[in-house]
């Protein structure tokens, strides 16, 4: 009678053990899947920010490369890129700079930027910081620093010749 009872107990314990092992493996596989997706999304987002920031600035430069219309300077103490334009006889500036963890673009009449604050620019992309430098008189160097420590660098040649920072 006891043997019969023990055999029955072993049956139940075995089945429960298999069930627990199955549950544990299901949980492990699901967590692995979630981690893979999560890490892929995170890497993709970091690369996206770096790539888009530099591509955006390069596209802006390529669309405004005219003689004397592009120069590196500072805006409210931050490195900035000035793109000059003229509409109906009035001069305008597009200023690209970074402030408070955002890449910003400010479009205003020439001289008016002095009356505006750093947060006046339209936020374009959330980044750490961006800096502009004349590596050569006609070669602009754009350096990007992400908020999580990653970085990127892009050179852009100015076919019309660059300007000296103000």
């Amino acid at each position, binding site marked *: 009678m006891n043997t*019969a009872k023990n055999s029955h107990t072993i049956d139940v314990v075995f*089945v429960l053990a298999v069930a627990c092992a199955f549950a544990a493996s299901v949980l492990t*596989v699901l967590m692995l899947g979630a981690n*893979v997706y999560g890490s892929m999304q995170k*890497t993709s987002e970091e690369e996206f920010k770096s790539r888009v920031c530099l591509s955006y600035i*390069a596209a802006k430069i390529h669309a405004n490369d005219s003689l004397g219309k592009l120069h590196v300077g500072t805006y409210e103490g931050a490195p900035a890129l000035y793109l000059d334009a003229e509409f109906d006889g009035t001069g305008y500036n597009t200023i690209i700079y970074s402030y408070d963890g955002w890449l910003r673009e400010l479009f205003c009449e020439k001289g008016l930027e002095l009356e505006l604050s750093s947060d006046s620019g339209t936020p374009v992309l959330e980044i750490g910081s961006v800096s502009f430098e004349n590596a050569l008189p006609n070669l602009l160097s754009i350096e990007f620093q992400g908020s999580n420590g990653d970085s990127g660098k892009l050179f852009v040649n100015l076919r019309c010749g660059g300007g000296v920072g103000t």
Partner: protein
Amino acid sequence: MKVRSTGSGSGMFLTELLMAILIFAVASAICLRVFVAANHVSAESSRLNHAVASAQNCAECFKATGGSLPETAALLGGAFTGTRAIEVRFDSGWQLLPPGEPSFCYVAAIVRMPEKAGSIDAQVTVCDIAGTKIFTIPVSSFQDQEAEL
């Protein structure tokens, strides 16, 4: 008459459990293949993006230096490979390696084309260590002065 319980309940449970394990194993195998394929595609995209950025940098520096390979190599941190080409080497994370580093994963090469009146032309190619081309663009610099080979 006593009928001893045959434990048919746990037998049925065990059968169901085994079926579930089988179904889950098949589904996991299929999904794992999908994860691997997605990871591979993502790695390819990342490789292409970095190759495009490296090629752009090479082309812009070449144009800015008027086609001068020594100046271009100095700007990019690359090295001469013969008289008409420079190479910039990267590791698996696309970090710049010192010139001539033997253990590299990717390389961006600028190869000057035969001389043409008025312009200095080159081809920028980014390859992996096996020589597979990832991205390539032409570049031309206006020859307004004699550029060093």
